[in-house]
Structures are given as C-alpha cells and as structure tokens.
C-alpha cells in the first residue's frame, strides 16, 4: 500500500479563541507537544548504505555494534553474484564465485585470496551472519571483486565499477527561464515542492556531484541549486523565487524545471470569467498561499515514447493524436485566461506514477488527461473509479484512493464539460472508469476519450475537429472555474 500526502489535520485557525482555553488545556497541549518532540528525537532515521553496480542498485541497513557501524557481508555481495557462506566454530568461510575468504569472530585479521587482510574493527558473527565494519568496504570489496570500488563513507554510497550518473544543468535565457538538466542515464527522482524550493531525491540512481556541490545560475528566478548526499541517497535542491514545476523529456534523461504557469490576462469577452487577483509576493519573493491559490490546468497527453497507445489506423498512433489535441487544448485554455501546463510536450515516456506525482506537486485547479479511441463517436468524459473500501490510515490517504475527497468536484467539472460539448452539438457522455492515474490525483481530475465524429477514424487527426472539441472543453473548464476556485 502506498500513501499520499497527509490530510490537513488542524481546523482553520481563528475558530478557537485563546480566551476559551483554560490553563489546564494549555498545560495538556504543552505536555503533548513535549512528548511528541521527545518521541521524534528518540527515533532517529534508520542508517542505510546504497550500493550501485551494473548488476543492481540496492540499499541495505547499517547496524550499530560496539559504537561502530557494521554491515552483513553476505547481503553486500549477494546481488553482485554467486555467494556462499559457512560457519565452522568461530570461523566464517565466505565464497564469492571462486574467491575464498576466511573471517574469525572477534578477530580483526582475515584471509582473502590467500593473503592477510586487517579489518579496522573485530569481525562479528551473529547467528551465522558475518558482520564487517562498514568503513572497510572501500578496501575489502576491491580485493574480493578484483575491480575498482568508490566508497563515500560520509554519505554511505558505494559505486562498484564505472556506474556513476553525471549531469549538467543550465538555465535558458527564455522568458520564463527554464533549468534544463541533462543526465547520462535515465533518472526517476521523487519530486517535492515547498516554498522557494524544488527537491529531487535520487534514491536509486548513482548520481554524483558535478565539479561543485553548489551550482549558481545567471538567473534571478532560479539563482542556484545544491547537490547533497546523505544516508545512501542523493538530493538536488533547486532554489527559486517563484513556485517551480518539473517535467521529464528525452526518455527520462532530461528534467526541465520551470516556473508554474502564471495567470495571464484573459481575453476581454463577457462570457469568460476573469482570473482572481493573485496574492502579493512577500519580501522573500516566495508565498506558498499564492502558489496554492494560483489557478491553472494540467493537461496530460496520454501514452508517449515507447508506449504507443491504441493503433487508430495503420499509421495513426494514439500517442500522437493525444499530443496534438493537448497542444490545441492548451491554446484554447490560454485564450480563456487559464494558464496550462502539458505534462509532456514531446514523444517522451512517463509512467502513470510520474504523471500523478508531477500533477500533485504542481497543485493545479484541474487535471485533464487525454485519450483517443476509434470506437464510438463524440467525447467521453471520465471521472475516477475509486475503491469504496480505501484503506486510509489516520492523516494519510491511500495512494490508490487519493482522488476520493475530490470526486464530487471532478464530477461537477465533468458535468460542466459535457453540458458545454452538448451545447456545441458534440456527442458527449459522462462516465466513471478504472483509469489510472485519475484515482491518484489530488485535485479535480478528468479523462477525455475523444472518438471520431462519425465512423471515419481519420477525422481524429483533423485540425478542424480537434479545434472544435478543444474549444468546447476549454469553454467547459472556464464555466466551472468558480466551483473549482471555491474548492481551493
């Protein structure tokens, strides 16, 4: 079971006035806070080491014994090849392929490949499990593997052979500026945003620092980024004066970081609602409430890259039509004063989890996922089929049922779109579907399945048809803007 962001726990401040809280209640609250602090301090983060190799990237727990850090030797080598271990009294015989090693419990001297090797602390034997001091891995492993190993003991990251992933980072001179990061191998970091920062945690990638751990850019919007390594993971923190959003390209080898789309001035027509005034940016230039209130849409052209989607005709793949339609929809939404971000603006592969994670961290007012089908006609507007027995755990929502609290909002938006499509003489139905990532999205979430207007599937690629559907959908989104904003 995966979990999403915690629900807000506290009621809106201001509902409780301090005068109503008696001294007993204050003392009780203080004691709870004190106990929580002590509890949090007494349960430190588990120490881990991450090993990167051509065979596998894996993370292992680090054990504390006699004030030193230890690691199970069998677990270290198991993913790398054939290993066996045998206990004979105090002796622990370890074999990696045909390389024999002999360790003795309580002793610092071991024999590896027939020659002596001194450990920095005693070898430990616990129920047949051989433990070696962590600090020796940098010299012990090359002896057994017969190849180079790089061990960064402070960050507990160990690289077997030439597996490091390097990257370059450059801010473009465009408006708004974009930070383009190119990696030497595909990456899939966990991305989180907070006021003034975008964090990318690389838990499984052998990412190494460029020349300097602090990167500075010639940009006032994205002035710098910092590379950190700690407890078996690498982290890149991008600082900015505005809220940022990240998107992937080049099959995961490129990450583009740019400001969340700003509200643009709407076309001055009577039927289109004007965007609300955005909150003023404080002295620090960063305002979380402003970013939360900012009204914009995320449009997700489904499939892409290796995943072609449905074959609509011999030459026409679903992934190409979804992208073409998404671009038209972005244009139509922009015309109506709704800034829009496309999750992919090229032929790149994105997993469903990546799509949901990128959307949730951007906090849009609405998420619209585009699909195209050759069966039927008109447009089908879907909301998520969410399990009714979702296993929520306290303040945390089940990842698979994260949409639960937004279902009503999604249906309101869906009904608005269907009504607008009907008014433009386009056949439309409102349905519920088991379609990821709708159920993972924490805002109003819709999926559109666009079918041809008649039995002619080639019409799906027609700019005129795409334009008419996109205009109706954008008008529908504009119509429900007040409901979506009220919910935010």
């Amino acid at each position, binding site marked *: 079971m995966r979990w999403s962001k915690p629900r807000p726990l506290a009621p809106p401040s201001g509902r409780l006035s301090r005068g109503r809280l008696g001294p007993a209640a204050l003392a009780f609250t203080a004691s709870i806070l004190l106990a929580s602090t002590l509890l949090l301090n007494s349960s430190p983060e588990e120490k881990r080491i991450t090993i990167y190799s051509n065979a596998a990237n894996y993370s292992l727990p680090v054990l504390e014994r006699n004030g030193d850090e230890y690691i199970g030797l069998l677990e270290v080598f198991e993913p790398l090849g054939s290993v066996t271990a045998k206990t004979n009294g105090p002796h622990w015989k370890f074999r990696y392929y045909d390389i024999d090693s002999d360790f003795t419990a309580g002793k610092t001297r071991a024999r590896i490949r027939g020659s002596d090797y001194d450990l920095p602390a005693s070898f430990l034997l616990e129920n047949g499990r051989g433990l070696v001091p962590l600090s020796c891995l940098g010299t012990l492993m090359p002896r057994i593997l017969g190849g180079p190993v790089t061990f960064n003991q402070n960050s507990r990251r160990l690289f077997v052979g030439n597996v490091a992933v390097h990257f370059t980072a450059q801010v473009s001179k465009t408006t708004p500026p974009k930070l383009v990061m190119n990696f030497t191998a595909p990456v899939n970091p966990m991305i989180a945003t907070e006021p003034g920062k975008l964090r990318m945690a690389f838990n499984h990638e052998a990412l190494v620092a460029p020349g300097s751990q602090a990167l500075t850019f010639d940009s006032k919007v994205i002035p710098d980024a910092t590379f950190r390594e700690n407890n078996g993971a690498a982290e890149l923190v991008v600082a900015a004066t505005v809220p940022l959003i990240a998107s992937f390209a080049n099959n995961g080898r490129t990450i583009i970081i740019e400001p969340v789309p700003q509200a643009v001035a709407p076309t001055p027509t009577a039927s289109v609602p004007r965007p609300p005034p955005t909150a003023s940016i404080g002295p620090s230039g960063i305002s979380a409430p402003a970013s939360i209130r900012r009204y914009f849409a995320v449009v997700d052209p489904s*499939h892409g890259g290796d*995943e072609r*989607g*449905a*074959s609509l005709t011999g030459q026409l793949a*679903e992934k190409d039509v979804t992208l073409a339609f998404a671009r038209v929809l972005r244009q139509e939404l922009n015309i109506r004063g709704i800034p829009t971000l496309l999750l992919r603006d090229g032929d790149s592969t994105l997993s*469903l989890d990546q799509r949901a994670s990128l959307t949730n961290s951007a906090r849009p007012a609405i998420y619209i996922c585009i*699909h195209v*089908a*050759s*069966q*039927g006609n008109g447009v*089908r507007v*879907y909301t998520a*089929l*969410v*399990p*009714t*027995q979702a296993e929520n755990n306290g303040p945390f929502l089940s990842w*698979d049922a994260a949409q639960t609290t937004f279902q009503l909002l999604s249906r309101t938006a869906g009904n608005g779109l269907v009504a607008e499509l009907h008014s433009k003489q386009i056949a439309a*139905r*409102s*349905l*519920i*579907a*088991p*379609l*990821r990532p709708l*159920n993972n999205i924490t805002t109003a979430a819709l*999926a559109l*399945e666009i079918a041809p207007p008649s039995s002619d599937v080639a019409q799906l690629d027609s700019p005129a048809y795409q334009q008419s559907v996109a205009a109706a959908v954008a008008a529908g989104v504009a119509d429900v803007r007040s409901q979506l904003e009220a919910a935010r």
Partner: protein
Amino acid sequence: MIPRHLIIAVAILLAITLGMSLYVWRMRGRVDRIEVSTIDTQPVAPPVAGASEQVTLYVAYDDAGVLRPKSVRIPLPVGRQERAAEILRALLPIYEDQFSPHPLAPGSEIRDVYLVDPGLAVIDLNAAFADNHRSGVLVEELTIVSLVQTLSANIPGITRVKILVEGRDRDTLAGHADLSNFYDVPAVTQAVAQLQNAQ
C-alpha cells in the same frame, strides 16, 4: 573432356542438395504452423457436466456503450468456485461470435476463478484475452465490468474482484483499464449504473 563418373557424382550431389532444400523448406513451414498453434487459442477447461441452471449474464454492447442482462441456462457444477468459472466462461461464446456486440479476440479464455474468503474473487485470464484485446478506455472498461457484474450477480458474497493474466499481475488490460488494483463490487455497480444512465 570431363569424366563420366564425375558428371554422375555432381548430378547426384545436386539432386541431394535440391531434395534437402525442399525438405528443409517444408519443415520450416511446419515449425511455423506448430508455433502458431502453441499460442493459447484452445479452450483450457473440459466440458462441464451438471444440472442446467438459469444465470444472468451482463453482456457488453459497444454500439450503445452499455451492459444488458441476458438470462441463459447452462450446466453448472456443484462447487462454488467451479460454478463461478463456468458462469464467466458462458460470456465467451457471445463475445467470440461472428456478430458479437463486443468482440473479443479468438482464443480468449477464463483460465480459472479463485474465491478467497471473505468476499474476494480472483479471475485469471489467459494471455490471448489481454494481449489481443482492443485498446480503448470504454472497450476495456466494458469487458471488465461485464466480468465483475456477471460474477457478483450470480455468486453471492463477492465484494472485491482482482483480475490476473496468466496468473500474474498486470498494469492494464490493453493500455487503459487498470488491472493493478482490486475492483470493489459496489464501485463497479456504480460505474455500471452510470453507463446505463449516460446512454
């Protein structure tokens, strides 16, 4: 002048080469046919013997995008699990028919149904069912809700359904409908009601 015995030897060798080529050519065609036939297109379960009973199948119709109930009499075994499998298998002749309202690929099969208390049913489809299924949100959804609704309507007590393909987890049926999660029967019933209302 080429000696006569050499001419005869070369002729024999050419004849043998030609014969071997023809033989290899025929064997290659035969291997192709064998490989094709190993794709699971045959029924995997034996015919069922048992008293005929009336069951309600929920049949998908692509044109209207709805499920319609259909009463049929089929022989059903005694065991609850075997009955569940046979009821779902009764849908397949309808979907594989030439004039099917919701065509499934030839060779689509329900490998097994497992009932795990309390209230969980696991439907195991064969590879041909999923690999050759048409791709699209609605067509895939219709297949899934037809299976889940038919099962829950005829086997009391089923509250959740999980769909596997060849005994393994799979992300989607054919690129759209989610197979990674469990299906709650009440949620599926709600989706079916929406399908019927929206036609």
